[in-house]
Protein backbone atom coordinates (compact mmCIF):
# COMPACT_ATOMS: atom_id res chain seq x y z
CA UNK A 1 0.00 0.00 0.00
CA UNK A 2 1.67 3.12 -1.09
CA UNK A 3 -1.07 5.68 -1.52
CA UNK A 4 -2.21 7.41 1.55
CA UNK A 5 -5.18 5.70 3.09
CA UNK A 6 -8.32 7.73 2.92
CA UNK A 7 -10.20 7.08 6.06
CA UNK A 8 -13.95 7.36 5.99
CA UNK A 9 -13.82 9.32 9.19
CA UNK A 10 -12.91 12.82 8.00
CA UNK A 11 -11.18 13.95 11.16
CA UNK A 12 -8.71 16.72 10.52
CA UNK A 13 -5.83 15.43 12.55
CA UNK A 14 -3.37 13.10 10.88
CA UNK A 15 -2.06 11.85 14.19
CA UNK A 16 -4.02 11.64 17.40
CA UNK A 17 -2.79 10.05 20.58
CA UNK A 18 -4.95 9.58 23.64
CA UNK A 19 -3.75 8.93 27.15
CA UNK A 20 -0.60 7.09 26.04
CA UNK A 21 1.45 5.70 28.91
CA UNK A 22 4.64 3.65 28.91
CA UNK A 23 6.54 2.37 31.92
CA UNK A 24 9.97 0.77 32.05
CA UNK A 25 10.12 -0.98 35.38
CA UNK A 26 9.44 1.70 37.98
CA UNK A 27 10.15 4.59 35.59
CA UNK A 28 7.21 6.15 33.77
CA UNK A 29 8.77 7.23 30.49
CA UNK A 30 5.54 8.54 28.97
CA UNK A 31 2.79 9.59 31.31
CA UNK A 32 -0.80 9.70 30.01
CA UNK A 33 -0.11 11.98 27.04
CA UNK A 34 -2.68 13.19 24.53
CA UNK A 35 -1.94 15.14 21.38
CA UNK A 36 -3.33 15.96 17.95
CA UNK A 37 -1.27 16.88 14.96
CA UNK A 38 -2.86 18.35 11.85
CA UNK A 39 -2.04 18.03 8.16
CA UNK A 40 0.85 20.25 7.03
CA UNK A 41 2.11 20.80 10.54
CA UNK A 42 5.76 20.77 11.60
CA UNK A 43 5.66 19.64 15.19
CA UNK A 44 8.67 19.52 17.51
CA UNK A 45 8.99 17.42 20.64
CA UNK A 46 11.57 19.29 22.69
CA UNK A 47 13.03 18.11 25.95
CA UNK A 48 16.18 17.09 27.77
CA UNK A 49 17.46 13.52 27.40
CA UNK A 50 15.36 11.09 29.39
CA UNK A 51 12.24 13.23 29.13
CA UNK A 52 10.40 10.52 27.17
CA UNK A 53 10.30 12.23 23.77
CA UNK A 54 12.01 9.41 21.89
CA UNK A 55 9.83 6.82 23.62
CA UNK A 56 6.73 8.73 22.53
CA UNK A 57 8.04 8.79 18.95
CA UNK A 58 8.74 5.06 19.06
CA UNK A 59 5.21 4.44 20.30
CA UNK A 60 3.84 6.39 17.34
CA UNK A 61 6.09 4.34 15.04
CA UNK A 62 4.89 1.11 16.63
CA UNK A 63 8.35 0.14 17.81
CA UNK A 64 7.22 0.32 21.40
CA UNK A 65 3.82 -0.85 22.67
CA UNK A 66 2.13 1.57 25.08
CA UNK A 67 0.92 0.21 28.43
CA UNK A 68 -2.22 2.31 28.11
CA UNK A 69 -3.81 4.67 25.61
CA UNK A 70 -4.34 4.67 21.85
CA UNK A 71 -2.70 5.99 18.71
CA UNK A 72 -4.76 7.03 15.68
CA UNK A 73 -3.37 7.78 12.24
CA UNK A 74 -5.85 9.44 9.86
CA UNK A 75 -8.61 8.36 12.18
CA UNK A 76 -7.69 4.68 12.23
CA UNK A 77 -6.72 3.09 15.53
CA UNK A 78 -3.22 1.70 14.96
CA UNK A 79 -2.33 0.99 18.58
CA UNK A 80 -2.27 -2.75 17.98
CA UNK A 81 -0.69 -2.56 14.53
CA UNK A 82 2.97 -3.51 14.09
CA UNK A 83 5.30 -0.84 12.62
CA UNK A 84 5.23 -2.42 9.15
CA UNK A 85 1.49 -1.86 8.75
CA UNK A 86 1.39 1.81 9.74
CA UNK A 87 2.41 3.70 6.59
CA UNK A 88 4.77 6.15 8.24
CA UNK A 89 8.25 7.33 7.36
CA UNK A 90 11.01 7.73 9.87
CA UNK A 91 14.47 9.27 10.02
CA UNK A 92 16.61 7.84 12.78
CA UNK A 93 19.38 9.17 14.91
CA UNK A 94 22.74 8.01 13.43
CA UNK A 95 20.77 7.61 10.18
CA UNK A 96 20.65 3.77 10.46
CA UNK A 97 21.29 3.23 6.79
CA UNK A 98 21.61 -0.48 5.95
CA UNK A 99 25.39 -0.91 5.66
CA UNK A 100 25.20 -3.78 3.16
CA UNK A 101 22.90 -2.04 0.69
CA UNK A 102 23.78 0.63 -1.85
CA UNK A 103 22.26 4.09 -1.56
CA UNK A 104 19.63 3.34 -4.22
CA UNK A 105 18.72 0.06 -2.54
CA UNK A 106 18.47 1.80 0.80
CA UNK A 107 16.13 4.42 -0.59
CA UNK A 108 13.74 2.08 -2.41
CA UNK A 109 13.65 -0.35 0.52
CA UNK A 110 10.21 0.85 1.74
CA UNK A 111 8.77 0.45 -1.79
CA UNK A 112 10.16 -3.08 -2.14
CA UNK A 113 8.67 -4.03 1.21
CA UNK A 114 5.29 -2.90 -0.05
CA UNK A 115 5.70 -4.80 -3.32
CA UNK A 116 5.52 -1.73 -5.51
CA UNK A 117 6.05 -2.42 -9.22
CA UNK A 118 9.59 -1.94 -10.57
CA UNK A 119 8.64 0.87 -12.92
CA UNK A 120 6.92 2.77 -10.14
CA UNK A 121 9.93 2.22 -7.87
CA UNK A 122 12.17 3.77 -10.49
CA UNK A 123 9.89 6.72 -10.94
CA UNK A 124 9.69 7.40 -7.21
CA UNK A 125 13.46 6.98 -6.82
CA UNK A 126 14.02 9.53 -9.56
CA UNK A 127 11.66 11.93 -7.85
CA UNK A 128 13.18 11.65 -4.39
CA UNK A 129 16.78 11.72 -5.69
CA UNK A 130 16.01 14.97 -7.45
CA UNK A 131 14.20 16.40 -4.44
CA UNK A 132 17.17 15.72 -2.16
CA UNK A 133 19.97 16.36 -4.66
CA UNK A 134 21.37 12.84 -4.47
CA UNK A 135 22.08 12.48 -8.18
CA UNK A 136 25.00 10.17 -8.92
CA UNK A 137 25.23 8.65 -5.46
CA UNK A 138 22.83 5.74 -6.03
CA UNK A 139 25.56 3.12 -6.46
CA UNK A 140 27.67 4.07 -3.47
CA UNK A 141 27.62 2.31 -0.12
CA UNK A 142 26.59 4.32 2.96
CA UNK A 143 30.10 4.31 4.44
CA UNK A 144 31.37 6.04 1.29
CA UNK A 145 29.16 9.08 1.93
CA UNK A 146 29.72 12.20 4.01
CA UNK A 147 27.56 12.88 7.04
CA UNK A 148 25.37 15.33 5.15
CA UNK A 149 24.85 12.91 2.27
CA UNK A 150 23.95 10.09 4.66
CA UNK A 151 21.44 12.45 6.21
CA UNK A 152 19.82 13.12 2.83
CA UNK A 153 19.69 9.41 2.04
CA UNK A 154 17.97 8.78 5.37
CA UNK A 155 15.45 11.52 4.54
CA UNK A 156 14.93 10.11 1.05
CA UNK A 157 14.22 6.67 2.49
CA UNK A 158 11.76 8.19 4.92
CA UNK A 159 9.90 10.13 2.25
CA UNK A 160 9.87 7.84 -0.77
CA UNK A 161 6.75 5.86 0.04
CA UNK A 162 4.64 8.98 0.46
CA UNK A 163 3.92 8.28 4.14
CA UNK A 164 1.04 9.72 6.12
CA UNK A 165 3.55 11.42 8.38
CA UNK A 166 7.29 11.57 8.89
CA UNK A 167 8.92 10.98 12.27
CA UNK A 168 12.39 12.40 12.84
CA UNK A 169 14.42 11.30 15.86
CA UNK A 170 17.21 13.80 16.49
CA UNK A 171 18.25 13.48 12.85
CA UNK A 172 20.72 16.36 12.90
CA UNK A 173 22.41 15.53 16.20
CA UNK A 174 25.46 14.01 14.53
CA UNK A 175 26.12 16.75 12.01
CA UNK A 176 28.50 19.62 12.53
CA UNK A 177 27.11 23.04 13.24
CA UNK A 178 27.32 24.54 9.75
CA UNK A 179 25.73 21.54 8.11
CA UNK A 180 23.04 21.46 10.77
CA UNK A 181 22.04 25.04 10.06
CA UNK A 182 21.82 24.25 6.37
CA UNK A 183 19.80 21.09 6.92
CA UNK A 184 17.39 22.82 9.31
CA UNK A 185 16.30 25.09 6.50
CA UNK A 186 16.17 22.26 3.96
CA UNK A 187 14.12 19.94 6.15
CA UNK A 188 11.63 22.73 6.67
CA UNK A 189 11.50 23.30 2.90
CA UNK A 190 10.74 19.62 2.19
CA UNK A 191 7.98 19.67 4.76
CA UNK A 192 6.33 22.70 3.16
CA UNK A 193 6.73 21.16 -0.27
CA UNK A 194 5.24 17.78 0.64
CA UNK A 195 2.56 19.05 2.96
CA UNK A 196 2.64 16.07 5.31
CA UNK A 197 3.15 16.53 9.04
CA UNK A 198 6.67 16.10 10.40
CA UNK A 199 7.18 15.16 14.03
CA UNK A 200 10.60 16.18 15.08
CA UNK A 201 12.27 15.02 18.29
CA UNK A 202 15.16 17.11 19.55
CA UNK A 203 16.88 18.35 22.67
CA UNK A 204 18.17 21.36 20.76
CA UNK A 205 15.90 24.36 21.24
CA UNK A 206 17.36 26.26 18.30
CA UNK A 207 16.44 23.40 15.95
CA UNK A 208 12.93 23.28 17.38
CA UNK A 209 12.50 27.02 17.08
CA UNK A 210 13.95 27.27 13.58
CA UNK A 211 11.87 24.58 11.95
CA UNK A 212 8.62 23.95 13.73
CA UNK A 213 5.16 25.43 13.81
CA UNK A 214 4.28 24.07 17.19
CA UNK A 215 6.45 22.82 20.01
CA UNK A 216 5.70 20.44 22.85
CA UNK A 217 8.18 20.85 25.67
CA UNK A 218 8.56 17.55 27.50
CA UNK A 219 9.84 16.83 30.97
CA UNK A 220 9.71 13.56 32.93
CA UNK A 221 7.23 11.96 30.57
CA UNK A 222 4.75 14.84 30.57
CA UNK A 223 4.07 17.83 28.35
CA UNK A 224 5.02 21.04 30.13
CA UNK A 225 3.63 23.20 27.34
CA UNK A 226 2.21 22.56 23.89
CA UNK A 227 1.88 25.71 21.83
CA UNK A 228 2.96 27.74 18.82
CA UNK A 229 6.71 28.27 18.99
CA UNK A 230 6.39 32.00 19.50
CA UNK A 231 4.08 31.45 22.42
CA UNK A 232 6.45 28.93 24.00
CA UNK A 233 9.32 31.33 23.65
CA UNK A 234 7.63 34.47 24.86
CA UNK A 235 5.12 33.07 27.31
CA UNK A 236 6.54 29.96 28.90
CA UNK A 237 3.85 28.54 31.13
CA UNK A 238 6.07 26.84 33.68
CA UNK A 239 9.36 27.22 35.48
CA UNK A 240 10.72 24.29 33.48
CA UNK A 241 9.87 25.79 30.08
CA UNK A 242 11.17 29.21 31.10
CA UNK A 243 14.46 27.66 32.13
CA UNK A 244 14.75 25.30 29.17
CA UNK A 245 13.78 27.46 26.21
CA UNK A 246 15.95 30.45 25.43
CA UNK A 247 18.83 31.77 27.53
CA UNK A 248 17.55 33.37 30.68
CA UNK A 249 18.82 34.95 33.84
CA UNK A 250 17.20 33.34 36.84
CA UNK A 251 16.39 35.23 40.01
CA UNK A 252 15.04 33.50 43.02
CA UNK A 253 13.86 34.99 46.28
CA UNK A 254 10.93 35.92 48.51
CA UNK A 255 8.13 38.25 47.47
CA UNK A 256 8.38 41.21 49.81
CA UNK A 257 5.29 43.14 48.86
CA UNK A 258 2.57 43.18 46.26
CA UNK A 259 0.93 46.23 44.75
CA UNK A 260 -1.29 46.38 41.63
CA UNK A 261 -0.18 42.96 40.38
CA UNK A 262 3.47 43.93 40.61
CA UNK A 263 5.53 42.20 43.24
CA UNK A 264 8.84 43.11 44.69
CA UNK A 265 11.39 40.29 44.74
CA UNK A 266 14.25 40.41 47.23
CA UNK A 267 17.30 39.23 45.34
CA UNK A 268 20.88 39.66 46.42
CA UNK A 269 20.19 42.82 48.33
CA UNK A 270 18.21 44.34 45.48
CA UNK A 271 14.54 44.77 44.87
CA UNK A 272 13.38 43.40 41.53
CA UNK A 273 9.90 44.16 40.24
CA UNK A 274 8.16 41.09 38.94
CA UNK A 275 4.69 40.12 37.73
CA UNK A 276 2.95 38.22 40.51
CA UNK A 277 2.32 34.57 39.61
CA UNK A 278 -1.25 33.40 40.19
CA UNK A 279 -1.85 32.28 43.73
CA UNK A 280 1.29 33.82 45.15
CA UNK A 281 1.19 35.95 48.28
CA UNK A 282 3.67 38.13 50.12
CA UNK A 283 6.47 36.17 51.79
CA UNK A 284 6.35 33.32 49.32
CA UNK A 285 9.39 32.16 47.45
CA UNK A 286 9.24 32.78 43.68
CA UNK A 287 11.51 32.46 40.67
CA UNK A 288 11.76 35.08 37.95
CA UNK A 289 13.20 34.40 34.48
CA UNK A 290 14.31 37.16 32.16
CA UNK A 291 15.78 36.31 28.75
CA UNK A 292 19.24 37.71 28.13
CA UNK A 293 18.23 39.60 25.00
CA UNK A 294 15.28 41.25 26.76
CA UNK A 295 17.57 43.29 28.98
CA UNK A 296 18.97 46.52 27.68
CA UNK A 297 22.36 47.93 28.41
CA UNK A 298 22.88 51.65 28.92
CA UNK A 299 25.74 53.76 30.09
CA UNK A 300 25.75 54.59 33.77
CA UNK A 301 23.94 57.84 34.42
CA UNK A 302 21.95 57.87 31.18
CA UNK A 303 18.27 58.54 31.52
CA UNK A 304 16.29 55.44 32.34
CA UNK A 305 12.58 54.96 31.63
CA UNK A 306 10.62 55.85 34.70
CA UNK A 307 7.75 53.92 36.17
CA UNK A 308 6.65 50.91 38.05
CA UNK A 309 6.87 48.65 35.00
CA UNK A 310 10.62 48.80 34.58
CA UNK A 311 13.57 47.43 36.47
CA UNK A 312 16.76 49.43 36.49
CA UNK A 313 19.90 48.14 38.18
CA UNK A 314 23.49 49.27 38.17
CA UNK A 315 26.47 47.06 37.45
CA UNK A 316 29.96 46.73 36.04
CA UNK A 317 30.87 44.88 32.83
CA UNK A 318 33.14 41.98 33.72
CA UNK A 319 33.62 40.47 30.25
CA UNK A 320 32.38 40.83 26.69
CA UNK A 321 31.86 37.75 24.56
CA UNK A 322 31.76 38.77 20.96
CA UNK A 323 29.89 36.20 18.84
CA UNK A 324 29.79 37.93 15.49
CA UNK A 325 26.13 38.68 14.98
CA UNK A 326 25.67 39.53 18.63
CA UNK A 327 27.63 40.10 21.79
CA UNK A 328 27.08 38.82 25.30
CA UNK A 329 27.95 41.07 28.22
CA UNK A 330 28.61 39.56 31.60
CA UNK A 331 27.65 42.19 34.13
CA UNK A 332 28.41 42.06 37.84
CA UNK A 333 25.57 43.49 39.90
CA UNK A 334 24.60 43.78 43.58
CA UNK A 335 26.80 41.77 45.87
CA UNK A 336 28.86 40.10 43.19
CA UNK A 337 26.29 38.08 41.21
CA UNK A 338 26.56 38.02 37.46
CA UNK A 339 23.87 38.60 34.86
CA UNK A 340 24.19 37.91 31.17
CA UNK A 341 22.91 40.40 28.64
CA UNK A 342 22.73 39.72 24.93
CA UNK A 343 22.98 42.66 22.60
CA UNK A 344 22.35 42.46 18.87
CA UNK A 345 24.35 45.58 18.25
CA UNK A 346 27.87 44.73 17.23
CA UNK A 347 29.45 48.09 17.82
CA UNK A 348 30.69 46.94 21.24
CA UNK A 349 29.75 50.13 23.00
CA UNK A 350 30.98 48.84 26.35
CA UNK A 351 34.21 47.27 27.47
CA UNK A 352 35.20 45.35 30.55
CA UNK A 353 35.05 47.32 33.82
CA UNK A 354 32.74 49.98 32.34
CA UNK A 355 29.95 50.91 34.75
CA UNK A 356 26.57 50.19 33.12
CA UNK A 357 22.88 50.24 33.84
CA UNK A 358 20.56 47.31 33.07
CA UNK A 359 17.00 48.12 32.07
CA UNK A 360 14.10 45.85 31.28
CA UNK A 361 10.35 45.80 31.27
CA UNK A 362 9.03 43.49 33.96
CA UNK A 363 6.54 41.96 31.51
CA UNK A 364 9.44 40.71 29.39
CA UNK A 365 10.20 38.12 32.06
CA UNK A 366 8.04 35.50 33.69
CA UNK A 367 7.62 34.61 37.32
CA UNK A 368 6.62 31.32 38.98
CA UNK A 369 6.16 29.95 42.44
CA UNK A 370 9.46 28.36 43.42
CA UNK A 371 9.57 24.68 44.13
CA UNK A 372 9.56 23.93 47.82
CA UNK A 373 12.93 23.59 49.45
Amino acid at each position, binding site marked *: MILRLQSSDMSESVLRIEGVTKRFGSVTAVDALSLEIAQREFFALLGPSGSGKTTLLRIVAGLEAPDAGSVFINGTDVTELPP*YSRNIGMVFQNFLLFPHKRVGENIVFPLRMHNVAQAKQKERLGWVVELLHLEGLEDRYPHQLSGGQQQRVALARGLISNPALLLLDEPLANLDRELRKEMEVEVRRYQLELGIPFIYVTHNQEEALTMSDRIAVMNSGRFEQVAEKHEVYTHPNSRFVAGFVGHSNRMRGALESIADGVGSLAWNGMSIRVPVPPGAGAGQSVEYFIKCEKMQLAGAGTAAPEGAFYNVIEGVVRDVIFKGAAADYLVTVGNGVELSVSDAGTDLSFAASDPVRLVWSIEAGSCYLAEDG
Partner: protein
Amino acid sequence: MRRARTLDVLSKSGSGALLVLLYVFLYAPIAYIIYTSFSKNIAWPFPPQLSLRGYELLWVGRTYHEALYNSLTLGIGSAVVCTLFATIGSIAVLKYRSRWRRLIVITYLCPLFVANLLIGISSLLFNRQVLNLPGNIGSAIIANAVHGTAFAFLIMLAQMVRYDWRLDDAAMVFGARPLRCFWEITLPNTWPAMLGAFVISFILAFNNLEISFYNLGATQTLPSTAWGSLRHGLGPELPALAALVNGVVFLAFAVMYLLMRYRIVSFGHRE
Protein backbone atom coordinates in the same frame (compact mmCIF):
# COMPACT_ATOMS: atom_id res chain seq x y z
CA MET B 1 59.97 7.86 22.88
CA ARG B 2 62.34 5.67 20.96
CA ARG B 3 62.35 3.15 23.73
CA ALA B 4 58.58 2.96 23.70
CA ARG B 5 58.60 2.40 19.95
CA THR B 6 61.17 -0.40 20.29
CA LEU B 7 59.08 -1.99 23.04
CA ASP B 8 56.03 -1.87 20.79
CA VAL B 9 57.85 -3.58 17.95
CA LEU B 10 59.29 -6.17 20.33
CA SER B 11 55.96 -7.11 21.86
CA LYS B 12 54.30 -7.22 18.45
CA SER B 13 56.94 -9.46 16.90
CA GLY B 14 57.20 -11.51 20.09
CA SER B 15 53.51 -12.31 20.21
CA GLY B 16 53.50 -12.88 16.46
CA ALA B 17 56.32 -15.40 16.88
CA LEU B 18 54.33 -17.13 19.63
CA LEU B 19 51.38 -17.44 17.25
CA VAL B 20 53.59 -19.01 14.60
CA LEU B 21 55.00 -21.41 17.21
CA LEU B 22 51.47 -22.36 18.26
CA TYR B 23 50.58 -23.14 14.66
CA VAL B 24 53.70 -25.27 14.35
CA PHE B 25 52.84 -27.06 17.60
CA LEU B 26 49.20 -27.60 16.54
CA TYR B 27 49.99 -28.78 13.04
CA ALA B 28 53.09 -30.87 13.76
CA PRO B 29 51.02 -33.93 14.73
CA ILE B 30 48.80 -33.35 11.68
CA ALA B 31 51.89 -33.23 9.48
CA TYR B 32 53.12 -36.35 11.22
CA ILE B 33 49.81 -38.11 10.49
CA ILE B 34 49.97 -37.11 6.84
CA TYR B 35 53.55 -38.34 6.73
CA THR B 36 52.66 -41.70 8.27
CA SER B 37 49.74 -42.07 5.88
CA PHE B 38 52.31 -42.45 3.14
CA SER B 39 54.53 -44.80 5.15
CA LYS B 40 54.77 -48.54 4.94
CA ASN B 41 54.80 -49.01 8.69
CA ILE B 42 52.66 -46.68 10.76
CA ALA B 43 54.10 -47.54 14.15
CA TRP B 44 57.76 -47.29 13.02
CA PRO B 45 57.75 -44.74 10.19
CA PHE B 46 61.50 -44.09 10.32
CA PRO B 47 63.45 -44.27 8.10
CA PRO B 48 60.88 -43.21 5.50
CA GLN B 49 59.50 -45.88 3.18
CA LEU B 50 56.78 -44.64 0.90
CA SER B 51 53.62 -46.61 0.37
CA LEU B 52 50.07 -45.88 -0.71
CA ARG B 53 48.66 -48.99 0.92
CA GLY B 54 46.58 -46.98 3.39
CA TYR B 55 44.83 -45.15 0.57
CA GLU B 56 44.24 -48.37 -1.37
CA LEU B 57 42.70 -50.07 1.65
CA LEU B 58 40.60 -46.97 2.33
CA TRP B 59 39.31 -47.02 -1.25
CA VAL B 60 37.91 -50.54 -0.90
CA GLY B 61 37.12 -50.72 2.83
CA ARG B 62 33.38 -50.43 3.63
CA THR B 63 33.94 -49.84 7.38
CA TYR B 64 35.59 -46.50 6.92
CA HIS B 65 33.12 -45.27 4.34
CA GLU B 66 30.38 -45.96 6.81
CA ALA B 67 32.29 -44.39 9.70
CA LEU B 68 32.95 -41.25 7.65
CA TYR B 69 29.31 -41.09 6.59
CA ASN B 70 28.19 -41.45 10.21
CA SER B 71 30.65 -38.83 11.40
CA LEU B 72 29.41 -36.41 8.75
CA THR B 73 25.79 -37.09 9.70
CA LEU B 74 26.62 -36.55 13.35
CA GLY B 75 28.55 -33.36 12.63
CA ILE B 76 25.98 -31.81 10.32
CA GLY B 77 23.00 -32.91 12.40
CA SER B 78 24.49 -31.48 15.56
CA ALA B 79 25.67 -28.28 13.83
CA VAL B 80 22.19 -27.61 12.41
CA VAL B 81 20.57 -28.04 15.82
CA CYS B 82 23.25 -25.93 17.55
CA THR B 83 23.17 -23.07 15.04
CA LEU B 84 19.38 -22.96 15.12
CA PHE B 85 19.13 -22.81 18.92
CA ALA B 86 22.12 -20.49 19.26
CA THR B 87 20.87 -18.06 16.60
CA ILE B 88 17.37 -17.57 17.92
CA GLY B 89 18.60 -17.70 21.51
CA SER B 90 21.30 -15.09 21.04
CA ILE B 91 18.99 -12.81 19.07
CA ALA B 92 16.42 -13.03 21.86
CA VAL B 93 19.02 -12.21 24.49
CA LEU B 94 20.56 -9.33 22.56
CA LYS B 95 17.42 -7.76 21.17
CA TYR B 96 14.79 -7.98 23.87
CA ARG B 97 14.65 -6.79 27.43
CA SER B 98 13.51 -9.31 29.98
CA ARG B 99 14.23 -9.96 33.61
CA TRP B 100 14.84 -13.59 32.65
CA ARG B 101 17.71 -12.69 30.41
CA ARG B 102 20.51 -13.51 32.79
CA LEU B 103 18.98 -16.88 33.68
CA ILE B 104 18.67 -17.75 29.99
CA VAL B 105 22.28 -16.78 29.27
CA ILE B 106 23.51 -18.94 32.14
CA THR B 107 21.42 -21.90 30.97
CA TYR B 108 22.77 -21.62 27.42
CA LEU B 109 26.35 -21.40 28.64
CA CYS B 110 26.31 -24.08 31.31
CA PRO B 111 27.21 -26.99 28.97
CA LEU B 112 30.56 -25.23 28.51
CA PHE B 113 31.29 -25.99 32.12
CA VAL B 114 30.46 -29.69 32.07
CA ALA B 115 33.16 -32.02 30.80
CA ASN B 116 32.48 -34.10 27.68
CA LEU B 117 32.99 -37.27 29.65
CA LEU B 118 30.25 -36.26 32.09
CA ILE B 119 27.85 -35.31 29.30
CA GLY B 120 28.59 -38.69 27.74
CA ILE B 121 27.97 -40.88 30.75
CA SER B 122 25.08 -38.90 32.20
CA SER B 123 23.13 -38.88 28.95
CA LEU B 124 23.91 -42.57 28.48
CA LEU B 125 22.36 -43.39 31.86
CA PHE B 126 19.53 -40.88 31.48
CA ASN B 127 18.53 -42.16 28.04
CA ARG B 128 18.76 -45.76 29.17
CA GLN B 129 17.15 -45.59 32.59
CA VAL B 130 14.70 -42.71 32.30
CA LEU B 131 13.76 -42.29 28.64
CA ASN B 132 14.33 -45.90 27.65
CA LEU B 133 16.13 -44.85 24.47
CA PRO B 134 18.75 -47.08 22.89
CA GLY B 135 22.08 -45.55 21.87
CA ASN B 136 22.10 -44.57 18.19
CA ILE B 137 23.08 -41.73 15.92
CA GLY B 138 20.06 -39.70 17.07
CA SER B 139 20.95 -39.79 20.75
CA ALA B 140 24.57 -39.02 19.86
CA ILE B 141 23.45 -35.98 17.84
CA ILE B 142 21.39 -34.74 20.78
CA ALA B 143 24.17 -35.21 23.33
CA ASN B 144 26.70 -33.49 21.07
CA ALA B 145 24.29 -30.69 20.23
CA VAL B 146 23.91 -29.85 23.93
CA HIS B 147 27.64 -29.25 24.12
CA GLY B 148 27.85 -27.48 20.74
CA THR B 149 24.91 -25.15 21.41
CA ALA B 150 26.82 -23.55 24.26
CA PHE B 151 29.87 -22.94 22.05
CA ALA B 152 27.73 -21.67 19.18
CA PHE B 153 25.84 -19.38 21.55
CA LEU B 154 29.05 -17.94 23.01
CA ILE B 155 30.47 -17.30 19.54
CA MET B 156 27.29 -15.65 18.27
CA LEU B 157 26.91 -13.54 21.39
CA ALA B 158 30.47 -12.24 21.18
CA GLN B 159 30.22 -11.47 17.47
CA MET B 160 26.76 -9.91 17.50
CA VAL B 161 27.04 -7.76 20.62
CA ARG B 162 27.99 -4.85 18.35
CA TYR B 163 25.20 -5.35 15.85
CA ASP B 164 22.85 -2.38 15.93
CA TRP B 165 19.38 -3.87 16.41
CA ARG B 166 17.81 -0.52 15.57
CA LEU B 167 18.55 -1.41 11.95
CA ASP B 168 15.77 -3.97 12.37
CA ASP B 169 13.56 -1.24 13.82
CA ALA B 170 14.26 0.87 10.75
CA ALA B 171 13.39 -2.02 8.44
CA MET B 172 10.13 -2.65 10.29
CA VAL B 173 9.07 0.97 10.11
CA PHE B 174 9.66 0.86 6.35
CA GLY B 175 7.33 -2.08 6.03
CA ALA B 176 9.42 -5.23 6.50
CA ARG B 177 7.63 -8.05 8.32
CA PRO B 178 9.73 -9.98 10.87
CA LEU B 179 10.82 -12.78 8.51
CA ARG B 180 11.55 -10.38 5.66
CA CYS B 181 13.46 -8.19 8.07
CA PHE B 182 15.56 -11.15 9.20
CA TRP B 183 16.27 -12.15 5.60
CA GLU B 184 17.02 -8.66 4.28
CA ILE B 185 18.76 -7.00 7.21
CA THR B 186 19.73 -9.27 10.10
CA LEU B 187 21.08 -12.20 8.08
CA PRO B 188 23.32 -10.24 5.67
CA ASN B 189 24.94 -8.53 8.65
CA THR B 190 25.31 -11.54 10.92
CA TRP B 191 25.91 -14.55 8.69
CA PRO B 192 29.65 -14.68 9.41
CA ALA B 193 28.82 -15.20 13.09
CA MET B 194 26.33 -17.94 12.16
CA LEU B 195 28.83 -19.57 9.83
CA GLY B 196 31.43 -19.48 12.60
CA ALA B 197 28.98 -21.08 15.02
CA PHE B 198 28.04 -23.73 12.45
CA VAL B 199 31.65 -24.63 11.62
CA ILE B 200 32.74 -24.80 15.26
CA SER B 201 29.78 -26.94 16.33
CA PHE B 202 30.32 -29.18 13.31
CA ILE B 203 33.99 -29.66 14.19
CA LEU B 204 33.18 -30.38 17.83
CA ALA B 205 30.68 -33.12 16.96
CA PHE B 206 32.37 -34.55 13.85
CA ASN B 207 35.29 -36.01 15.71
CA ASN B 208 33.97 -36.11 19.23
CA LEU B 209 34.99 -39.20 21.14
CA GLU B 210 33.96 -38.80 24.75
CA ILE B 211 30.34 -37.77 24.24
CA SER B 212 29.66 -39.91 21.18
CA PHE B 213 31.37 -43.04 22.51
CA TYR B 214 28.76 -43.57 25.23
CA ASN B 215 25.76 -42.59 23.12
CA LEU B 216 26.33 -44.17 19.74
CA GLY B 217 25.39 -47.73 20.62
CA ALA B 218 26.64 -49.96 17.80
CA THR B 219 26.99 -47.12 15.28
CA GLN B 220 30.57 -46.49 14.20
CA THR B 221 32.05 -43.04 13.59
CA LEU B 222 35.63 -42.09 12.77
CA PRO B 223 36.85 -41.64 16.35
CA SER B 224 35.07 -44.71 17.67
CA THR B 225 36.56 -46.77 14.83
CA ALA B 226 39.94 -45.38 15.79
CA TRP B 227 39.32 -46.28 19.43
CA GLY B 228 38.23 -49.78 18.47
CA SER B 229 41.14 -50.41 16.13
CA LEU B 230 43.66 -49.43 18.82
CA ARG B 231 43.48 -52.85 20.44
CA HIS B 232 44.97 -54.52 17.41
CA GLY B 233 47.07 -51.57 16.28
CA LEU B 234 46.03 -48.56 14.28
CA GLY B 235 45.06 -49.52 10.73
CA PRO B 236 46.79 -47.66 7.90
CA GLU B 237 43.43 -46.45 6.61
CA LEU B 238 42.92 -44.00 9.51
CA PRO B 239 45.91 -41.75 8.83
CA ALA B 240 45.03 -41.84 5.13
CA LEU B 241 41.47 -40.74 5.86
CA ALA B 242 42.67 -38.04 8.27
CA ALA B 243 45.10 -36.80 5.61
CA LEU B 244 42.25 -36.56 3.11
CA VAL B 245 40.01 -34.70 5.56
CA ASN B 246 42.81 -32.26 6.28
CA GLY B 247 43.37 -31.84 2.56
CA VAL B 248 39.75 -30.71 2.21
CA VAL B 249 40.13 -28.37 5.19
CA PHE B 250 43.30 -26.79 3.78
CA LEU B 251 41.57 -26.33 0.45
CA ALA B 252 38.67 -24.58 2.17
CA PHE B 253 41.12 -22.31 3.99
CA ALA B 254 42.91 -21.50 0.75
CA VAL B 255 39.61 -20.53 -0.88
CA MET B 256 38.68 -18.43 2.13
CA TYR B 257 42.07 -16.72 2.08
CA LEU B 258 41.71 -15.85 -1.60
CA LEU B 259 38.20 -14.49 -1.05
CA MET B 260 39.54 -12.27 1.74
CA ARG B 261 42.72 -11.34 -0.10
CA TYR B 262 40.84 -10.02 -3.11
CA ARG B 263 38.06 -8.55 -0.96
CA ILE B 264 35.35 -10.62 -2.60
CA VAL B 265 33.88 -11.66 0.74
CA SER B 266 34.94 -9.97 3.96
CA PHE B 267 33.40 -12.51 6.38
CA GLY B 268 32.09 -9.76 8.60
CA HIS B 269 35.29 -7.77 8.84
CA ARG B 270 34.78 -4.03 8.47
CA GLU B 271 37.71 -1.83 7.51
